[in-house]
């Protein structure tokens, strides 16, 4: 995982370096946003394909899906609540 983390960090830093050095106009910036959204939706579709093709995941989902869903909803809900409780303190009152 350490290697992956470093790889992600390196890619983000490379992008940040380019973003900081190269002057990107408003038009190109808007186009980059659209490309980013298209890539994101494609990535999510491929992740969906991976899940849809995994017969073990699909069959397990039908047998223990209810428990998994209840745990996930509570996990997500309480983690949002936890962050909400401290967000004002972390940002010093800003959004």
């Amino acid at each position: 995982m350490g290697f992956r983390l470093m790889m992600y960090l390196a890619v983000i830093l490379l992008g940040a370096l380019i973003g900081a050095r190269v002057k990107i106009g408003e038009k190109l910036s808007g186009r980059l946003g659209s490309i980013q959204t298209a890539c994101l939706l494609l990535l999510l579709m491929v992740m969906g394909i991976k899940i849809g093709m995994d017969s073990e995941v699909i069959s397990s989902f039908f047998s223990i899906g209810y428990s998994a869903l209840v745990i996930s909803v509570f996990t997500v809900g309480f983690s949002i609540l936890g962050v909400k409780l401290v967000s004002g303190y972390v940002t010093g009152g800003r959004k």
Partner: protein
Amino acid sequence: MTGKILGAVAAGVALGFFLLPGWVLDYTDLIIDIGLMLLLFFVGIDIGMNRSVFGRIRNMGLKIILLPFMIIVGSILGAALAGALLGMPFNESGAVGAGLGWYTLSSILMANYSNELSTLAFIANVVREMMAFIIIPLVAKKIGFLGAIAPAGATAMDTGLPIISRATDSETAILAFITGAICTFSVPIIVPLILNL
């Protein structure tokens, strides 16, 4: 955005389940890795174009650690409460929540304890990741930018990051990466810890 994300994931699951041949699965990981790198590169460009965020984040200091801490505490407590409703022991449901969306590792960590719990950890964390993708834009809009980091948990540093970046701003994207990294490093420690309580 939430509708588009839901549509993309649902279309993918339907395509994978009903239409695509088995060999496609050999390439999905590679496509996901390439797509993710490209998206993280775009996140980097956004950050580079808004350099003032670094000063603001420096001002927050160590308070940033509260974000992953509250995500971990909230996830474990939420899962424990759900477990109580489902009639599960605290240590088992809490450990499932402590997976923080990292489904592969959390299920491996529980494999020696119980096969059934390992499968539940896998599915629950897959569902958490998918749920995170869908609700992040909604949480960003209705609850706040920092709240949008929470559903992603450990995935806030990789697969969840591009969505958080699109739904929020550069400052939140950096905080999400730091939060996701801390959550990721916490999973192998807290899952066995909770499981053995």
